[in-house]
C-alpha cells in the first residue's frame, strides 16, 4: 500500500473500501468477487447464495459448462485456440496463457472496483493459471486484490500439490494478500460418513465464511475499524498456512460461549494453532447491543493465547445480529522451507515462459507490477546455493547427532523406572543425585 502516491485516480475508491462507511451504491461498485475455475465458481456460489449485499460476482472459467451452472452476475469464458473447447486439461500454463490473452478484458471488468476477492481452488488448470493474472490485472486497474484459495487434498497427488504451491507463490507475488486454506485440514471437520459432496460444500462454506469475515470488516461500520492497508501488511509473506474459524453464539453469555467454541474448533487444532500463529485477524460481528466488555473479553482471551503474534481486530455492528455474536478468526503463519525449495526449482521454467510470452514483455510498467523478473536470477542462484549448502549441512548435522546419541552408560532409574518421573525444575529427581551433579565415585 505504500506505492499509493502514483495512483491518484483510484484513491477515492480505496478510501471508500477502507473506511467502509459509505452508502450502498458506492459499495456496489467497490467490491467484486471472482470465482475462478470449477472449484472457485462452486465455492463462490455459496457466497452468492448467502446473499452478500453490495457485491458483484464474476465467474471466470475456461470450461463453458460450469459457467452455465453459476448464478454470478457476470460470466467470462476464457478460450484460446490451443484448448479447442476442451478446457485447460489441468495445465496451469494453458490457463495462464488464456488469461494473459484476455488480460485487457479482465482489467476492464476490474475497473471501478475497490476490492477484488479472488476465489479459486488451486491445483488444476484454470484456477491456478488464471488467478495470478487476474490479481495482476486487478491491481493494474487500481483495485486491491485479495486471494482466497484452497490447495488440494494430499490424496490428489504430488503433481497437483506442486502446481498449487506454484500457484500460491505466483498469486502471492501478484496479489495484495492471499489467504490459503489447505483442503487437507478439512479432514478434522469431517467424520467417517461425510460424503464427498458435503465435504466440498463444507470447504466452500469455510472459504465463504472467511471472505464474509473480511468483507464485514471492510464493509460494515465498525466499532473498531480495520484499515485495509494494515490487513494487507499483515497478510504479506504469511499466507502459506492459514486457517479460518467462525463461531457464533446467542444469548447473555455469548462472548464466552463463542470463545469456547472457537478454542475447541478443529480448524484451529483446539486453539493450538493460535499459539503457533504469527498473525491473527479477529473479526467480531454483533448486534447494536454488543458491549465493549464482550469485545475486550474475546480479545483478551485470544491475545493471551497467541503471544508474540500480530493480532488485528475489527468489531462491527450488524442490525441482524441482535443478541448474536459471531467471531471469525483468520490465523496465518509463515510457510515452511520445502515450499521455498519448490519455488526455486520451478523458477527457471517460469522465466522462460515469461520471455517467450508477448504479453509479459508488453506489460505496462505499473506501480503494482512486482519486480520479480529482475531480481529472480540472482535470487534463484542464491537460493539454490543456499539450498545446496543447507542440504549438505543438514546431512552432516544428522550424522553428528547419531554419533552423539550413542550412550556410554544407560542411566536406569531402577525401581522408579515405571513410575511417573519426578521432574523438578527440569531435573529428573529419580536419577541419582551424584550422577546428575557429575560427581565421580572412585
Amino acid at each position, binding site marked *: 500500500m505504500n506505492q499509493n502516491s502514483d495512483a491518484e485516480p483510484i484513491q477515492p475508491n480505496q478510501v471508500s473500501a477502507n473506511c467502509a462507511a459509505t452508502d450502498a451504491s458506492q459499495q456496489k461498485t467497490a467490491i467484486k468477487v471472482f470465482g475462478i475455475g470449477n472449484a472457485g465458481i462452486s465455492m463462490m456460489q455459496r457466497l452468492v447464495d448467502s446473499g452478500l449485499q453490495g457485491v458483484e460476482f464474476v465467474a471466470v472459467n475456461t470450461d463453458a459448462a460450469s459457467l452455465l451452472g453459476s448464478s454470478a452476475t457476470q460470466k467470462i469464458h476464457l478460450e484460446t485456440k490451443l484448448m479447442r473447447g476442451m478446457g485447460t486439461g489441468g495445465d496451469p500454463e494453458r490457463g495462464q496463457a488464456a488469461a494473459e490473452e484476455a488480460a485487457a478484458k479482465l482489467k476492464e471488468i476490474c475497473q471501478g472496483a475497490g476490492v477484488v476477492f479472488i476465489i479459486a481452488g488451486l491445483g488444476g488448470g484454470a484456477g491456478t493459471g488464471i488467478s495470478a493474472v487476474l490479481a495482476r490485472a486487478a491491481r493494474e486497474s487500481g483495485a486491491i486484490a485479495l486471494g482466497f484459495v484452497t490447495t488440494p487434498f494430499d490424496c490428489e497427488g504430488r503433481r497437483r500439490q506442486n502446481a498449487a504451491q506454484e500457484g500460491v507463490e505466483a498469486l502471492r507475488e501478484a496479489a495484495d494478500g492471499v489467504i490459503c486454506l489447505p483442503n487437507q485440514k478439512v479432514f478434522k471437520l469431517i467424520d467417517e460418513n461425510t460424503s464427498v459432496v458435503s465435504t466440498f460444500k463444507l470447504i466452500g462454506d469455510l472459504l465463504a465464511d472467511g471472505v464474509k469475515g473480511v468483507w464485514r470488516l471492510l464493509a460494515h461500520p465498525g466499532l473498531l475499524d480495520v484499515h485495509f492497508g494494515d490487513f494487507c501488511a499483515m497478510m504479506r509473506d504469511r499466507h502459506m498456512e492459514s486457517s479460518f474459524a467462525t463461531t457464533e453464539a446467542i444469548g447473555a453469555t455469548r462472548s464466552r460461549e463463542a470463545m469456547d467454541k472457537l478454542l475447541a474448533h478443529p480448524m484451529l487444532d483446539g486453539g493450538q494453532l493460535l499459539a503457533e500463529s504469527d498473525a491473527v485477524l479477529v473479526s467480531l460481528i454483533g448486534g447494536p447491543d454488543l458491549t465493549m466488555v464482550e469485545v475486550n473479553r474475546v480479545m483478551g482471551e485470544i491475545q493471551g493465547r497467541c503471544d508474540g503474534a500480530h493480532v488485528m481486530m475489527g468489531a462491527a455492528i450488524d442490525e441482524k445480529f441482535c443478541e448474536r455474536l459471531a467471531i471469525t478468526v483468520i490465523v496465518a503463519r509463515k510457510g515452511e522451507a520445502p515450499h521455498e525449495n519448490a519455488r526455486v526449482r520451478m523458477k527457471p521454467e517460469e522465466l522462460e515462459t515469461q520471455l517467450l510470452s508477448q504479453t509479459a514483455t508488453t506489460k505496462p510498467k505499473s506501480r503494482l507490477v512486482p519486480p520479480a523478473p529482475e531480481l529472480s536470477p540472482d535470487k534463484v542462484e542464491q537460493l539454490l546455493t543456499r539450498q545446496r549448502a543447507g542440504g549438505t549441512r543438514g546431512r552432516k548435522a544428522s550424522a553428528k547427532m547419531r554419533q552423539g546419541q550413542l550412550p556410554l552408560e544407560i542411566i536406569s532409574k531402577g*525401581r*522408579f523406572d515405571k513410575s511417573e518421573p519426578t521432574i*523438578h525444575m527440569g531435573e529428573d*529427581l*529419580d536419577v*541419582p*543425585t*551424584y550422577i546428575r551433579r557429575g560427581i565421580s*565415585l572412585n
Partner: protein
Amino acid sequence: MFDPSSIIVGLEIGTSKVCAVVGELNAENALNIVGLGQARSRGVRKGEIADAPMAEEDVRNAIVEAEKMADVEIRSVYLGVTGGHLRGFNNRGVHPVVSADREISEEDVQDVIKNAKTINLPAQNHVIHAIRQHFLVDGQDGITNPVGMLGARVEVDVHVVHGNLNRLQNAIRSVKGLQLEVDDIVFSGLASSLAILTNEQKELGSLVIDIGGGTTEYVVYTNGIIKHTGVLAVGGDHVSNDLAYGLKVPLSRAEQLKIEHGSALMDDSVKGQNLAITNELGLPLKEINLENLRQIMSLRLEEIFQLIAHDLEQAGAIDYLRSGVFLCGGGARIAGIAKLAEQVLQMPVTIGKTNSISGLKSALDQPEFATAIGLVKFGSFQQRKRSAKATLTQGIKSTIGNFFKR
C-alpha cells in the same frame, strides 16, 4: 470405651509401611492411644498406590493387628494422603462490611471465609484442606477473630491443599474395599506436624519435614497458622535406589546397607574404608567402598533439604522459623541427618517427638509414627467439633421438648 464415636483410627498407607493407630477419647475428651498395627507396604510407590490388591492386603494386615491390640472393631479411619500431585497455596478472600455501624458481624466472617474458599481449580482437582489463617481488617494483619471490630473491609487468607481427584480416589477406594469407612482424608505432612508441634512451637514458627519412603512432606507454621506446605516425591526409596545403582548391589541389599552403615554426613573416618558384603552363609561376596556409600547418601539427602530450602525461600517462609526445624518419618532415623539439615537450612534442627499424646509411650515415640498419630489427633479435633455441635442441637431439642411437655 464401647461408644464407637470415641474410637478414632488413623491410617497411613505409606511407601514403606502401612500403619494404623487406634486412639480413644476418654471421659474428659483427652486422647489416649490404645492400639497400633503395621505392615510392610508393597503396593505403593512415591506415596501413591501402584498395585491396589497388594496395598489392600497390607492395609488389612495393619488394621487387623491394630484391632487385636486395641481390642476394638475398626469401622472408620482417617486416611493420610500424599504424593507429588499435591499442591499447597494461599488464597485470599475479601468481603466488604455493609452494615451501617461498620461493626463486623458473625455473618461477615462467614462470608469472607466462604469467599476465600471459592477457588478456581481445574475440575479434576480436589481441595483436601482449606485452612483458615489470619484475618485482615482494613489491611491490618494478624487478627484472629474480627467479630465485633469496626472496619470497612474484612479479608482472610486460607491455605489450600489440593490434589488430583482420581489419584486421591485410589487410596480411598482401597480402604473402602475392606468395608471400612473413610471419615476424612488428611494431608500426611499436616498430620505429622499436628503430632509433633506444640502450640508454642506453632506460634514461634517451625518447619516440620517428614522424610518418608517415597515422598518428603513439609509444613511451615508461623504465628500459630499454617503458612506453607509442600510435597517432594523423593524419599528414602530414592536413597536406596541410588545406592543400588552406585554400588551395583541389589535393591534389598542397598536397603540393608543404608540402615546398617548409612549416614547423612561424610566424615573422614570412612575415607578409603572398604566393607565386605557376605551372603547368608557368611561367605564374602564383594567389597564396597564405604566412602562411596556415604557420598551417594549424603548428596541425595542434601539435595532434598536444598530443594525444600529453595521452595521456602520462594514462598518467603524461611525467615520466620524461630523454633527451628523438626524432622520425622523414617528418614529421620538416618544417622547425622539433623546435622546435615542444620548445615543446609542454617537453623537448629531436632528430631520430632510425638509427646503431646498419652498412651503407649515407648512404642510410639518413634519418628515414623508421627503421621499416623497426627491423623488420630486430627480425628479427635473433628470428633470434638462434632460432639460439641451434637450437644448443642441436643440441648435445643430437649429445651423445645420440655417446652411442649409443660
